[in-house]
């Protein structure tokens, strides 16, 4: 379906209580702060958030957590020097945590976006992460069965989009954006600039428009 260009609040209007929301960014690089602010204003709660970290400082994802909208965090690295909002909620027993190794987090979303039912992965073999999980020896090496992570919604930040929704990113702010864009029912991309169709070199497009449902320009 054609990508709609909308304001941030309109972009997130379909998010429902209890949804799983994939949130791009590695720390603040690639974090879609304005989309998260809109999600806070929209008011949906009881959310499961999938993101590499569990918020930095008091803005972006940390603000969503502080607003009490998140039931569960799925992430690889919640504990950071500036993750005081998550730390407080976790220690008070007010938020669930599913800790996923960073590469598994990316690959499980890639699997969801690519229609893969599950996959065997060597990461975490012999560690607490693999306890109680199905394992299998293939060609003499042990693997753990991993299932896809699919989102109802993905909130990502890219650099420039054309009006069709093709995306280019900037430097390491790319991080989870291209993977999350494929793994959600509705993908919402925040970009610094929207250009006319034909202005992006097709060879440089990283996320093709087919994966993008809503575009929000944040200058």
């Amino acid at each position: 379906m054609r990508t709609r260009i909308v304001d941030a609040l309109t972009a997130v209007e379909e998010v429902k209580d209890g949804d799983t929301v994939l949130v791009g960014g590695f720390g603040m690089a690639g974090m879609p702060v304005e989309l998260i602010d809109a999600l806070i204003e929209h008011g949906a709660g009881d959310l499961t958030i999938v993101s590499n970290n569990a918020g930095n400082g008091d803005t972006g994802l940390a603000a969503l957590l502080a607003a009490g909208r998140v039931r569960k965090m799925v992430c690889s690295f919640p504990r950071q020097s500036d993750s005081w909002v998550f730390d407080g909620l976790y220690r008070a027993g007010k938020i669930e945590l599913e800790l996923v190794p960073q590469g598994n987090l990316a690959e499980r979303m890639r699997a969801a976006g690519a229609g893969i039912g599950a996959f065997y992965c060597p990461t975490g073999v012999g560690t607490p992460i693999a306890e109680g999980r199905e394992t299998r020896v293939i060609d003499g090496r042990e693997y753990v069965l991993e299932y896809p992570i699919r989102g109802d919604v993905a909130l990502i930040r890219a650099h420039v989009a054309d009006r069709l929704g093709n995306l280019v990113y900037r430097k390491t702010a790319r991080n989870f954006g291209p993977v999350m864009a494929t793994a959600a029912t509705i993908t919402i991309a925040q970009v610094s600039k929207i250009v006319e169709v034909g202005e992006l070199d097709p060879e440089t497009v990283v996320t093709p428009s087919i994966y993008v449902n809503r575009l929000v320009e944040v200058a």
Partner: protein
Amino acid sequence: MALDKNELAQLVAGDIPDGAYVNLGIGQPTSIARYLSPESGVILHTENGMLGMGEVVPAERADWDLTNAGKQPVTELPGAAYFHHADSFSMMRGGHLDVCVMGAFQVSAGGDLANWHTGAADAIPAVGGAMDLAAGAKQVWVMMTLFTKSGEPKLVPACTYPLTGKACVTRVYTEVATFHITPEGVRVTATYGIGIEELATRLDMPLLA
């Protein structure tokens, strides 16, 4: 004389083969980059999505779209490439990364690595890319102090902390000795200010010389 942190970083840098693709873990291993010469052709991988990472820069020169795995601002070198997270970790798991150097809480004589969780009840667990690196890099090297602040060995017969990876560490670099983990046992490759017998006594394990 025991090595200081800079001497240790320099030692590790000198052992990295020319032209290797290398991931340096958050914290002390990051400092190894300072001792890699451009002539070595070593290319640094950062798991947030870049090959050809340059040096850490101060905040006034920061581009916050260009950071390392510790979220510090860095530079890009000529020949750099950017990629998304699934590609970045495919480079590890797919066996394309030659060396990774990580810190550790404990390494076992069999090469098991523990560096993500102390197991303390009130600790907030965080693993990041450590398990993927442990499972995927061709060689996993550890750079750490050999003893804790209270004097407990960190190279141990068996890890008591939760594991990051099994039988993955091949070398251990510390301020008083360096080790190769081999199928025959733990081999001491150099010592700094300590005799090998004292080392074996303090570690309470057999050592190959």
